[in-house]
């Protein structure tokens, strides 16, 4: 009996090398989106040629323009083209909108009984919107915060779409024990969605602080972490507390003192963050996932 149990354990043991292999099998992002992703920390980039390439993808262009015209930016006049969006909102913001649209569109909804893709994206989008509000409060880069918030749980999508059976076990254990999903992942897979997310964002060549925010968003000790990690950690918690994912079984993670201290949230500021997050959230969900 004993050797059998050991072999089952080994079967579930997911290694980084294995994850990288699986990531290669993920649906490819279009060439222009890959170019945009890898340009996140580059300043010298041919904006005109990128705008032209994006305009050739009609679905991507249409969704990006709907986002640009949403209350997220509160523009007075309608933006009609990618070029116009870049001129008015700036290249950085448009890049955030395009990569957001492309990434949310790139993970097809799988066939798993337990994983709720709708809740997943609702929570990810809420965290992105909330992270942007928090970044504005501490005068950090709002586009970085939005993207890092959107992607903080992306490791879950790798696990649920590439390790579907094992992840069913994780979700079953989580439900039976009413534990945090992170603990169930560690118990069954010996890795977790934060670590897998780090591998994916490194593969996508995201800036290092964004990779760290994904990797450490559940860490309780954040003394050595940067502001972006603190923003994503707290945004994740605030949006769970606001109950925005429509997941009946949602659990608010435990707050890291060091992250909380960095953000200096008073009752007045948190009320403002809550209100702005809820104001923008539903509209962005409508555009991206419905």
């Amino acid at each position: 009996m004993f050797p059998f149990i050991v072999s089952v354990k080994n079967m579930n043991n997911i290694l980084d090398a294995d994850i990288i292999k699986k990531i290669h099998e993920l649906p490819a992002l279009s060439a222009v989106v890959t170019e945009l992703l890898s340009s996140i920390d580059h300043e010298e980039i041919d904006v005109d040629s990128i705008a032209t390439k994006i305009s050739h993808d009609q679905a991507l262009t249409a969704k990006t323009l709907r986002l640009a015209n949403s209350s997220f930016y509160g523009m007075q006049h309608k933006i009609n083209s990618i070029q116009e969006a870049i001129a008015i909102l700036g290249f950085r913001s448009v890049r955030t909108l395009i990569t957001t649209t492309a990434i949310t569109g790139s993970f097809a909804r799988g066939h798993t009984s337990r994983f709720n893709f709708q809740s997943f994206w609702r929570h990810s989008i809420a965290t992105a919107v909330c992270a942007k509000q928090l970044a504005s409060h501490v005068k950090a880069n709002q586009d970085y915060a939005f993207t890092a918030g959107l992607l903080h749980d992306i490791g879950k999508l790798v696990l649920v779409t590439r390790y579907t059976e094992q992840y069913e076990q994780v979700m079953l254990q989580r439900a039976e024990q009413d534990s945090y999903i992170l603990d169930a992942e560690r118990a069954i897979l010996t890795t977790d969605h934060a670590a897998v997310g780090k591998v994916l964002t490194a593969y996508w060549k995201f800036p290092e602080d964004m990779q760290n925010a994904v990797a450490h968003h559940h860490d309780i000790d954040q003394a050595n972490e940067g502001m972006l990690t603190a923003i994503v950690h707290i945004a994740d918690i605030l949006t769970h507390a606001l109950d925005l994912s429509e997941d009946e079984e949602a659990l608010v993670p435990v707050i890291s003192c060091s992250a909380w201290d960095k953000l200096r949230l008073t009752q007045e500021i948190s009320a403002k963050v809550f209100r702005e997050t809820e104001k923008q959230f539903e509209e962005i969900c409508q555009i991206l996932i419905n």
Partner: protein
Amino acid sequence: MSNIRQLALEQAEAGMQIAVDLKDSNGNILLPSGASLTDASIKSLLRRGVTEISIVCEEEPVDQHLEQERVRNRLSKLFRKSHAGELDRLLMDYVSFYRIGKKYE
């Protein structure tokens, strides 16, 4: 039972009644509880950088009570693993105050 709601000052309108003394960062009272807002006082508060106010709202007391129960029960479920922490408990108060104008009890 007092029905208090927190509101962005931008959304406030003349005639609304202040529910809690509005103080500046030095603790000086800008507007006492019970005062009614006027267009002039809203402008003056905006100039002072005030962003949030608590106002008295007139809703059916029974509905209000049900809503408070609902928010309270949902918060206790969402925080069922983390409510023992000091900061986590503070956040429950923040959300409760935002939703129903009073702390979680």
